[in-house]
């Protein structure tokens, strides 16, 4: 039950962040470790700043 709730919470947070243009940090770190071990792993702060700028780079979709 507790584990279930935690999973739901995690998903809710993930959805909320993605709706603001910030993808899952853990997934990105895992991806980097697995596929690009030579690249430095950014801190959450660096990751967040990069994504924040990327979201408003244009081409962006947002509805009326």
């Amino acid at each position, binding site marked *: 039950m507790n584990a279930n709730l935690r999973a739901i919470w995690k*998903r809710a*947070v*993930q*959805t*909320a*962040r*993605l*709706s*603001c*243009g*910030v*993808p*899952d940090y853990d*997934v*990105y770190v*895992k*991806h*980097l470790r*697995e*596929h690009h071990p030579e690249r430095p792993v950014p801190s*959450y*702060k660096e*990751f*967040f*700043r990069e*994504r*924040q*700028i*990327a*979201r*408003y*780079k*244009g*081409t*962006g*979709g*947002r*509805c*009326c």
Partner: protein
Amino acid sequence: MHTAVAKPSPAGKILWAVIAIIGAWCLGVVALRRGEPINAIWVVAAAIAVFLIGYRFYGKFINDNVLRMDPSRATPAVLRNDGLDYVPTDKWVVFGHHFAAIAGAGPLVGPVLAAQMGYLPGTIWILFGVVFAGAVQDFMILGLSLRRDGRSLGNMLRDELGPVAGVVAMFGVLVLMMIVLAVLALVVVKALTHSPWGTFTVACTIPIALLMGIYLRWVRPGRILEVSIIGLVLLLASIWFGSHVSVSPTLAPLFNFDAKALAWLLIAYGFCASVLPVWLLLAPRDYLSTFLKIGTILLLALAIFLAAPTLQMPAVTKFIDGTGPVFQGNLFPFLFITIACGAVSGWHSIIASGTTPKLLASEGEARMVGYGGMLMEAFVAIMALIAAASLHPGVYFAMNSPSALIGTTAQQAATTISEWGFVVTPDELLNTAKNIGETSILSRAGGAPTLAVGMAQLLHGIIPGEGMMAFWYHYAILFEALFILTTVDAGTRVGRFMIQEIAGLVYKPLQHTESWTGNLLATAICVGLWGYFLYQGAVDPLGGINTLWPLFGIANQMLAAVALMLATVVTVKLKRERYVLVPGIPAIWLVVCTLTAGWQKLSGPISFSAAAQKYAQAAADGKLLAPAKDAAEMQRIITNNYVDAALTGIFILLILTMLGFTLNAILKAWRINHPTAHEEPYVALGSVPIQ
């Protein structure tokens, strides 16, 4: 056929038969009961039944036969997984993200305006429009993009219809965006005109956002949820404090503006917001508005379910004959232009070919996100329609009719509206204004204020309390203004990049988005473009919304028609001609609606040209027509109407051009006996190599 469709179980068949019977019964009540008002729950139940059946049967039919979505096929997210833009993501998370991206002010405004014809025409168009047009468009564009590396609508048009078609469509998108920004900003202007309380709370969002931006940057980087809660508390405090501002003799005048002044303030604000670094103002507002939007939609749903209001607006009013005060024009085609978002919205094709296809982990989930997401948006539109129709019709018309028709005092308005057959007393109008903490409710067209009064009455019915209605009203105004202004900021930025790209074709250095000269210049052009239409709306004789909303509707439905034409071309190119009518019929319908509406706005009694001629005639006779106060203002109104007429002409040309490209591509593809669509090759999900 590549997938075997499982036969439904007997229990399943019974269940769907029951849903169908309930749906038909509710629709029957909504459509046929006359003379006595019905409860909103009938509309809600009919909508849910129609959406369930549409999703289960028509959505699945498109999934299996037209798009042939294949869960065994690797999606762009899997093939190009980079952990950032392309990430295979849980389907509920993608659904939430997609819905947050497509839901905006549009579905809340259109249905409110369309309520002048009664609740029935709008309800029917939303229910059947979404099932057969809107959701089809969103789902099919998502499906096409999934098969094309998550490419954008513009790129897909270029690939399938040729480079010229791509450029024409992108030009259309830029123009549409300017109109969207102008009309949405006008909604805010209409809501805040001479409303110190509303203006104060909306102004407060700027320092609150700056504070949030600094907090996110230095105090607790990246803690979006935390900072949004802080922001929300501050916002609620500003609404509470706003009530004191509105009665203070020293503070109230500082926040009391007329429409022209507000338009200038918004133009200046839009310029600053899109030039400043995003983390300072734009991003924090965006976070706040995203959460507030979802929260308020849930609140509206809760209010409607708990309050179960009676619809006071008649099912059909006499205004279906085109004489309505809120917008001019007959039911056909103007109902289908006025309710764009909620039934079918061209903008969604940009989202459905933007971030969403880069996140889906399986093609099997596209129906839920694409088709299902749009059904959710239609539900929001239905709720907005209910909120408007549950208002006293007299109050509704007082709020949405231009002062040129109903005058500027409660006495005049009540007399005129009662003559239309919606009996209302001046006291009722004054009391409503008093209850929501405003001095006047007259001529506040644009949807936001009407929805806010509707919501305030519903919520007040559930949680009564002295002065609470005024709080709820200003809460609703604030949240709509907040997410409209976020759209304006972000849209100005996107428009700026588009303009810089175009300017770069002429003079290369202008393309550098980092360069301050290019940046400021392109931003000024972008703000100037939508600002022109906004200001024009603020000085418009019919209040602006009456003029600009049809332009927006035509442009938005034009884009939807383009997206559906693309889907039609691809269906033929894949040699699935027998399903060509699935995207083909809504495409034809939208072409017919936009061309008819465009033509009527170009020539005839309700056209921009007729309005221009009327003012030109008066000017030649040396007369002044309201709201113009001198000859220069007369001249400006004439020019504005000619600009609108020219713009309508451009839209008509654009749609005819795209129609030509489409028919040409269809004919070519029909003759060839093998598929010619530009799909990426099939890669099995299990065979994707680790990158």
